[in-house]
């Protein structure tokens, strides 16, 4: 059963088309990654889905409720948690005062559990919070009423790596508890750990929806290395190598390429060289877009 449905959504601000004819559904118990560069229309889509603004065209629903209609939306919102991108709270209020207000209005059965995991300084005023602490407060309020559906807009922005890890583990647990999670990100490595499926949005259009495994296989790794001596280009003439550049640097050779082939073959090719430096990292999302979707759009 689809818990979140977006059907032919278009949102225009005057002449500006923020989202165009976007159709997407998220199944119950799924963690869905909504991926796209900044300014692609992710936040617009999520805010429209939550009824903060009305669709120019198309329909949005959560848990079967039409969220563009307030009377229905309110039924949905009691069962939905939301963390906005860059969440903001009353600077003059303490974290505790804010959570008390939220608890009074939507419940807080998991408040203590959330505070065990993410612990903003509750008795201090939000004005004194670091970005990370504001984000923690945002995460706590999003989950404190044990919502069935959680919508997260760039949730790990502002969290340090250790907390990001904890957050990802937490999301995996939530999925195992049958919760449905839709979260947006512009970082591929972030969605790969926790998402089942990924929708990629660019310039307001949904470019593809696929399993996260498939997307990663297609996007490949960015490999950069420095090897001793004058190494010829054919040393890395492997299936799955693209965008290869080669440069001689005082007695060594620098290579950089995107690799989406068999890892064993890459290791063998690397093993044949005397390496001074080696960097293997996830291909930046922008590169993924350019290499796979660059021609289909714009």
């Amino acid at each position, binding site marked *: 059963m689809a818990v979140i449905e977006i059907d032919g959504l278009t949102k225009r601000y005057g002449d500006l088309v923020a989202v165009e004819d976007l159709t997407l559904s998220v199944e119950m118990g799924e963690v869905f990654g909504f991926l796209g560069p900044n300014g692609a229309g992710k936040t617009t889509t999520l805010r429209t889905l939550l*009824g*903060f603004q009305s669709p120019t065209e198309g329909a949005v629903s959560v848990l079967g409720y039409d969220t563009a209609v307030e009377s229905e939306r309110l039924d949905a919102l009691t069962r939905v948690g939301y963390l*906005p991108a860059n969440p*903001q709270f*009353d600077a003059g209020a303490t974290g505790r005062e804010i959570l008390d*207000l939220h608890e009074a*209005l939507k419940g807080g059965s998991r408040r203590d559990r959330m505070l065990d995991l993410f612990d903003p300084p509750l008795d201090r005023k939000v004005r004194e919070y670091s970005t990370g602490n504001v984000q923690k407060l*945002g995460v706590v309020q999003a989950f404190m009423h044990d919502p069935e559906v959680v919508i997260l807009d760039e949730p790990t922005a502002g969290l340090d790596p250790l907390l990001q890890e904890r957050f990802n583990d937490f999301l995996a647990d939530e999925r195992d508890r049958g919760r449905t999670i839709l979260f947006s990100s512009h970082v591929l490595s972030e969605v790969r750990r926790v998402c089942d499926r990924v929708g990629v949005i660019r310039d307001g259009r949904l470019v593809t929806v696929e399993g996260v495994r498939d997307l990663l296989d297609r996007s490949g790794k960015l490999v950069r290395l420095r090897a001793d001596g004058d190494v010829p280009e054919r040393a890395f003439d492997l299936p799955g190598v693209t965008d290869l550049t080669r440069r001689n640097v005082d007695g060594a050779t620098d290579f950089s390429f995107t690799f989406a082939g068999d890892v064993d073959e890459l290791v063998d090719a690397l093993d044949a060289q005397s390496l001074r430096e080696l960097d293997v990292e996830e291909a930046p999302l922008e590169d993924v877009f350019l290499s796979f979707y660059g021609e289909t759009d714009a």
Partner: protein
Amino acid sequence: MLELTAYGARRRVKGAIALAVAISLFSLLYVGFFPSLASNVDLQQYVDSLPSVFVEAFGLRAFGTIEGYLATELYHFAWVILFGVYLAYSAAGLLASDVESGRIDVLLSLPVPRRRLVAEKYLALAPGILLVNVVVGAVTWAGTRVIGFPVAISDVIAVHALSLPYLFTCAGIGLACSVVASRASIAQRAAMGLTFGLFLVESLVTGTDYAWAGAIAPSRYYDPTAILVDGQYDLAGAAILTAAAVLLVAASGYYFARRDVN
């Protein structure tokens, strides 16, 4: 119900206390001046020399009595103008500042109808308004007794009680600006301009052929001089202001529930 009101009111306690103290000091300052002013200056002659529009605007008719003096210095000036404009300004920040700062996203994700959000935010101003009225009323009444020019307690109570519909209407004007604008500074400027502008219009047209134009100004329906000097309580005016405040809040809620918040 009223969780948002309680939360908002708690956030405003300090400001309300500070305002109550400030206006009370202002009141005591004027009250303290009155005895020497009354014995050394012919106030009525001074008033007679002023343009009639000025006399009307500040209710100067009976400036030589403690009642007329307070009606002008405290209630026309500090209450009708300063407090009214201040409330319009405060109310103008209620939603526009949340929209501008992005706080509104978390608020709108709460299962609360937008109309209720608007109404509860507005009501959060009420405890502060009441507090300032009670404190300033009590201080002013006590002050007049200390200087030996006591004002009837019933008139002090009336001048404050009947000011409530006026003050809530000013706050309603601010609220209306707040739901329309997406930036607090714009809402606040519009609210202050509108509230003060309406007061000016009413003052300028009174006694002219265009007096009807002053009917849209809240200050038309609350006259501290009439209450304190003549003991005339304009209950119809208070009813009109109450209706206006209710209408402004309802219209603000109606509009905010339908607008795109972005």
